[in-house]
């Protein structure tokens, strides 16, 4: 995990509006410069999961034959 510090995070609130904004970290709390979001890494990871819930087909493989029938 020596590279863990290199993982950046985008604001989950701005991202849910399709905007990429990097969060800044201070004392374990990540905050957004564009909106008022602030939270812990665990909260942010959970929010990313929530964002992905709309992608019902994220784990679905549609082959060429599947798509012809779709």
């Amino acid at each position, binding site marked *: 995990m020596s*590279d863990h510090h*290199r*993982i*950046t*995070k*985008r604001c989950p609130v701005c*991202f849910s509006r*399709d*905007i*990429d*904004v*990097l969060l800044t970290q201070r004392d374990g709390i990540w905050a957004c410069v*564009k909106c008022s979001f602030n939270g812990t890494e665990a909260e942010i990871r959970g929010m*990313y999961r929530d*964002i*992905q819930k*709309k*992608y*019902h*087909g*994220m*784990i*679905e*493989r*549609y*082959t*060429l034959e599947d*798509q*012809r029938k*779709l």
Partner: protein
Amino acid sequence: MMKLNIFHRTDPGRYEIFKRQQDLVHSLGMKTSVFLHYFDLFQDHIVADALAYQAAFGDEIGLALNRLEGPGMDDISRGLEHIWLFDEEQKRQLMEMALSKFKDVFGRMPTAVTSYHFDSSALRILKEIAPEVEGIVGGCFEEGVRVFHGCNHSWYLFNEGMPWGPWFPAKGHTLRPAAETEDWSGVVAVPHLARDMSLSFEGRNDFWASHPPNVIRGMGNDASFCPYDLNLIDQYRMQADFNGHTYYNTFVGTQWLTWNHNSEYPPEVAWELYTKQLTYFKQLKEQGELEDLTLTEYARWHKESRPFAEPEVYLAKEMLYQSHKHYFWHIDTDLRVLIDANQGGSIGDLRAYIGRVEKATGPDTPSRENGAYPYLIQSQYRTGYPNHSFDGSRTTLKLVKNGEEVDLCSTPTKVASVERSSAGSRMVLTPAKAVFPDGSTVEVETTYTIEPGGKITIKRSLSGDTEGILATEYFKGAPGCTEYPIDLHGIQLQVMDATGTQEMDYLYRRRRLEVDAPECVAAVVPQVNARVMMSAAKGAKPSSGLAREGNLFEPYFVLELTYDTNTSTEFSTCLIITA
């Protein structure tokens, strides 16, 4: 058969990544097109490696204009990386510098050149300096407003309204497919990446594309599990069913295969997904389903195999959200049309290439940064179906019975069949079911025929409880390039019957022209050099027609033709766009 280009750009700062990309493709038995920037041309080892790749694997060496830095160049570009955003004098200086250095190093001009976009003056100057150029990466399909927003209003690449596949760029507007040799800029352009033809219309085009790390940026992956990357390849393969062939490319820069601020994953995830994508290409190649080419090889194939005027279609089926919505795209040298099957077959985007709008970008042009081909309908930026107050640009069929209206945009359909030939395309939708408050239902089957010359024929067959139904073909349009309205002064509305023509200049007063037994209703739209006209096809007799202006809270024009279904339950309307 899918034609594939794999593109790589050199990068002195991340050279090991570039080499690993090259090795990966070669280990899978495929070739790449390697694009060197101006500053790369000063690095002997990069030049030597490129020549070795060319000798050993048949890779192509081309020029990248994506970054404009290096000896003598920095004083001109001053940090601006995008060739289409300079004035003509600087475009020429920069390209002369890069191309003459390329020639010094390799003893020849490049035949393949990349940028995110080439506007008409950049491409003209490129061809003046290097007539040898045959293939370019010339634009990012539907990149514009949404990526501008998505990058916190800081990414100034506006090139919407272009083809999704390879095309012959016209001289006057490089995003318009040329109609014939005189009109042609002299190169074959391919798009920068293949985009998702559902989601790049609904949202950001960069997330959903033939670029695995960009899908990570869109959060479409679960770590290194991302079937979407392969689904998109197969969706493009499916288009060969209609067009006889299909094209794909991938172009992953080195910055996407290391720590990247637009990814919450370590680099190995990006590598794994990139490897899976390339491995799938290899598998398809082994099955005889795919051919990998360099950009110049592709350009030559395109010139030999594709007539200028050949229409192309794309049937998009949305997969990531599992909405399974269908979108139907048609492009020819006169029109680009998007039909939204989920909205009953409404036209959701319309570009009247027949108007031959000319455009260059740069500080010395009135367009400045916006290189888009203007729309006549854009239902995402310009409201479309009403959700708040008024509706916006779109088409629909409105059915009225006893004063109750059903708008066909509220009735989802699917694409039932697609046929395409040199003469145009024909698309049939599954029947739309309109339910009225009294419980009665009417089914509408819609057939679109789109022919070169700007001619769209919409045939409606109504069945069920059709008694007393008035059916109105409805076109609401507005010219523009972004999500904001532009000045509509200059538009002229027209209605015509057997006795003559009534005309009205657009003054934002929401006035209307009405006519019984109309011959046609029309709008002359000088902003896109086009006239939009609706008339009944042979045999159909509309009972009334209307042309209406809007106001500053509803900046559109409306055209309507109304049919009384007591006369006939089947009628066809011609939507004709002329210059």
